[in-house]
Every structure is written in structure tokens, then in C-alpha cells.
């Protein structure tokens, strides 16, 4: 069979993830110290796991309502009110999804018609542009800049808006840069959007991981909630990646459409995970704080270490990544990562995997123990001593 003829041209044209390519390379080697992963090293807090065990012992695990268990949606609504001071009606404005990933997918598919332009702030996690392409939309990257600490600036946004612009994807706290958007930063973005018909997909999956100040959502800014599709989930905040649970919140006319897609492709999100997530939202604030404190120690350690050896990096106030510059080596991101892997067996992700504006940087995850990070820093220091120009 000639598969090239039968497969969807649109899917075949999708570029494989740049993270994936590098990951496969590292997987062929032994004794690699990885700084590559994008998920917490902590175990899911015990009370959450215990709830799942109890549920499996005592209940039938059946489908839930399409948009998720009512009690969970209420808990999400209360959580958003106390964290981002924004009210979402649990009945009509919240859909529980299979991870933040599905939330992003149905949000994009729910609003994009063929030819619609979607502004994708870059560097960013790798999924947005491909999902836009599958929905026959046109991804338009907005490159953010290191001198702005990779925040989105209003003039950069204004420059890319056309009459075809439908959606802005705003992923902060940011993977891979660790950048955040403060209330003032978001006010400036809101000023550009007011009076337009442009929607915002605000991916806030790292919202709990901010250091020094609380996360602010664009939905909090005056007049923005009506155009915001807020995506969040349990994976990062509660170390629940494998539980596959997220959610999307938006005004009812939007979620009404999103829940249709969700209902046809998923039916309902994993039931055991939903029960467990209620406990996460209601009882686990302290567990989260413990993890954040731990991340912060590692974060400061890495920022200091990289700046000391000449891989300069700004203070990343969010997520669990630092994004140091490799300019002092004169290498490209990919070259740097390949050499570092070959010579020192340390795996980091080339910045350009997250968009062209990531070129010249690498993503370093600190979802690892301090001991692990210290070994990695030793090796990277040795590497830099040989390759610094």
C-alpha cells in the first residue's frame, strides 16, 4: 500500500516535535544526566492518591457528566475565585478535560475556522502551532525577546494583528523560558485587545509555580474575561501528570461549543482522577507550597550557577525551567545540546525547539533533586571551560 497517498496531507506535513528528536538521541546513550523532563519529580500528594484508592475500592467507576463531576467543577470554580479572583459558573462555564492538552485542543478547534490567524507567543510549548494547523488555522508566531525577559510587549502584539486574527495564545508562566506576565504587563496587552474581537487562550498550567509574587491571569483584567479561554490543570501544580486531568473555563457561549467536541471525542474525563482532583483542590495547598519552596531553592541555585559560568540568564519567575543563553560558546542551540550530550552526557533541550526566537538558548528543567542538579552543573561547568570563547 502506498501510505503517502492515503494519509492526511495535513497531518503528514506536521513537523515532529523538536523536543522529541533530541530526546530520542539521548535515549540511545547510557548514564545520561537528564535535565530534559517537563513534569514534577515529586510524587502526587498522598491524600490525593489515597482518595483514588478509596474510590476504586468503594465505587463503580462509571462515566461522569460530559463536562465533569459537578462537585469537581464547583471546586474548580472556588479555586479560581480564590487564586485569580475570577468567577466561573460551574454549571455552564467549566469543562473538565483530559489534561491541559485536551483543553488547548478543544479551545482552538472550537473557535478556529479555516484561514483564521492565531497569534502564538514564542518561545512556547510545542503543541499550539500543530493544533492550529490541524484546525486549518494559520499560526502566526510572535517572537518575544530576551531583553524583555521573554514577556509579550503590546507593540509586538499590535504589529501582528490583521483582520484575520482570531485568537492570541498566551502561555504564562512560560515553558520553556520561565517568564511570567505581571498585572502591569497584562494591562498593556489588554489595552491592545479592548474593542477588538480577538479571543485569548490563556494557558496557565504553571500558575502555582511562581516565585516571589502570585500569578495573575488575564481574565482578572478589566473587560478581559469575556474574551478569555482559561486553560489549567492538575499535572504541574499537584504533580499529577499521569492522571491526565485539566480544565477549560470560558463564557458559556464558548464552553457550550467546546463541550460538544469534548463529548464526541472523549465522553468524559477519567473518573478516578476527577474524584482525586477534588481532594487536590480542597486539601493540598500545603503540599503545593512545599513543592514550590523546593523548586525555588533549585531555581536560585541554577540561575546563580549559570550566570557564574557565563551562560547568562534572567531571573525566571515562573514554571520550573531556566533558559540560559549559550552565546558565549558561539554554538547554535542544537550544536550545543549535541556536544554537551556527547562530551558530558548531560541532556538539555535546544531553545529553538520552542520556536525560532529560542535560538541561542537552552531549556533546563529543575524538576530534579538538588543532588542531581549539582552533578549536572559540575559537568556543564567543565564543558563551558572547554568551549567558552
Amino acid at each position, binding site marked *: 500500500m502506498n501510505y503517502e497517498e492515503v494519509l492526511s496531507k495535513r497531518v503528514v506535513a506536521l513537523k515532529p516535535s523538536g523536543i522529541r528528536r533530541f*530526546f530520542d538521541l539521548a535515549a540511545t546513550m547510557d548514564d545520561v544526566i537528564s535535565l530534559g523532563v517537563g513534569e514534577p519529580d515529586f510524587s502526587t500528594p498522598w491524600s490525593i492518591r489515597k482518595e483514588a484508592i478509596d474510590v476504586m475500592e468503594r465505587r463503580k467507576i462509571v462515566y461522569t457528566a460530559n463536562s465533569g463531576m459537578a462537585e469537581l467543577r464547583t471546586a474548580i470554580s472556588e479555586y479560581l475565585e480564590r487564586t485569580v479572583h475570577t468567577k466561573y459558573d460551574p454549571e455552564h462555564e467549566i469543562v473538565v478535560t483530559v489534561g491541559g492538552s485536551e483543553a488547548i485542543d478543544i479551545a482552538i478547534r472550537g473557535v478556529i475556522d479555516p484561514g483564521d490567524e492565531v497569534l502564538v507567543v514564542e518561545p512556547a510549548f510545542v503543541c499550539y502551532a500543530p493544533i492550529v494547523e490541524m484546525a486549518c488555522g494559520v499560526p502566526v508566531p510572535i517572537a518575544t525577546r530576551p531583553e524583555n525577559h521573554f514577556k509579550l510587549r503590546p507593540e509586538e502584539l499590535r504589529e501582528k494583528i490583521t483582520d484575520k486574527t482570531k485568537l492570541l495564545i498566551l502561555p504564562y508562566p512560560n515553558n520553556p523560558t520561565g517568564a511570567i506576565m505581571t498585572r502591569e504587563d497584562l494591562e498593556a496587552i489588554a489595552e491592545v485587545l479592548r474593542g477588538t474581537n480577538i479571543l485569548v487562550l490563556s494557558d496557565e498550567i504553571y500558575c502555582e509555580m511562581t516565585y516571589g509574587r502570585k500569578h495573575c491571569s488575564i481574565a482578572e483584567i478589566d473587560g478581559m474575561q469575556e474574551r478569555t479561554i482559561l486553560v489549567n490543570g492538575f499535572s504541574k501544580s499537584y504533580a499529577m501528570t499521569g492522571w491526565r486531568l485539566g480544565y477549560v473555563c470560558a463564557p458559556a457561549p464558548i464552553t457550550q461549543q467546546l463541550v460538544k467536541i469534548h463529548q464526541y471525542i472523549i465522553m468524559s474525563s477519567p473518573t478516578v482522577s476527577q474524584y482525586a482532583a477534588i481532594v487536590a483542590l480542597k486539601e493540598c495547598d500545603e503540599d503545593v507550597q512545599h513543592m514550590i519552596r523546593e523548586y525555588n531553592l533549585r531555581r536560585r541555585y541554577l540561575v546563580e550557577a549559570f550566570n557564574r559560568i557565563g551562560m547568562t540568564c534572567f531571573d525566571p519567575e515562573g514554571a520550573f525551567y531556566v533558559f540560559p543563553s549559550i552565546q558565549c560558546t558561539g554554538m547554535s542551540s542544537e550544536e550545543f545540546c549535541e556536544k554537551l550530550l556527547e562530551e558530558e552526557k548531560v541532556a538539555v533541550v535546544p531553545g529553538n525547539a520552542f520556536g525560532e526566537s529560542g535560538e541561542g538558548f537552552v531549556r533546563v528543567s529543575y524538576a530534579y533533586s*538538588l543532588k542531581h542538579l*549539582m552533578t549536572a552543573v559540575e559537568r556543564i561547568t567543565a564543558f563551558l571551560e572547554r568551549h567558552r570563547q
Partner: protein
Amino acid sequence: MTDLLNLLKENARLSNAQLADMLGLTEAEVARQIADLEKKGVIRGYTAILNDELAGDNEVEALIELRVTPKHDTGFDDVAKTIMLYDEVESVSLMSGKYDLALTVKGRSLKEVAMFVSQRLSAMEGVLATATSFVLKRYKDKNILIEEEEKDERSMWG
């Protein structure tokens, strides 16, 4: 507990420079805080956690539960303080529950520990009963796995 103490509890060999980076302090400030904690007696000492077998330590270790008659004025403190004086005794704790004092005792052989219990502890004034259990294997100590490294099961790079 402060971040500094948590870090030291996890790994007391972190250098002041490393601690300073992690805590966002200067090296001198870290040194000052540690000296202060030592002086105040908050930090009582530093020790290494060993895999005894690999370290060539063939001593046996026992957990001993002690029931004791408390003294009128000093409660359990007198007996505990007397027991503390023996080098064989590595730890002494006052417990709630069915017994009063919990000891860990080390000796060169089962027999040596047994002799220590029968001749020293049981004979002590105020000691009503003892129960000795020998440690067969240690899996985890002070939150550190003794025989294996923690495995990283994560394989996705998302």
C-alpha cells in the same frame, strides 16, 4: 523550620557557597546563620548516613522498649539520663503508648547486646520490663534509601 535547616538536614555537606545560591543570601550571611544555629544548640551535630554493610560495620543493632516507674519529682528523666551515659546506647526517646523509653543499642554481637540488656538495663532501678528487637535490615534512614538509588521513571520531555 527554615529553608536553611531543611537543606542541611537533607545534605549537611552543601558548601556555604551552594547554600548561599539556593537561599539567595551571601556566603558570609550563611556562615553567620550556621554559626549562630550551632551556638544556640539548634544544630547539635553532623553525621553521615551509611550503608553499614558496605562500610564494613558488622555491629548488630537492637530496638529496646523499656517500661519504667517514673520518679516522683523527676519523672522519666533520671532513668533516661543514666541510660544515656552508656556508649552502647545510640538513641533514647521518651514515648507515648505501651512503653516509656525507646532505645537503639549497638553491639558487636547478639550476645553482647543481650548481655547489656540483662545485666545493665534490666538491673537498673526503676526499670520494670524490657523488650528487645534486633534490626535485620535497614531500607531507609533519615529519608535516604540505603540500598538503592531512587529511579527516575519519567521519560517524556513535554
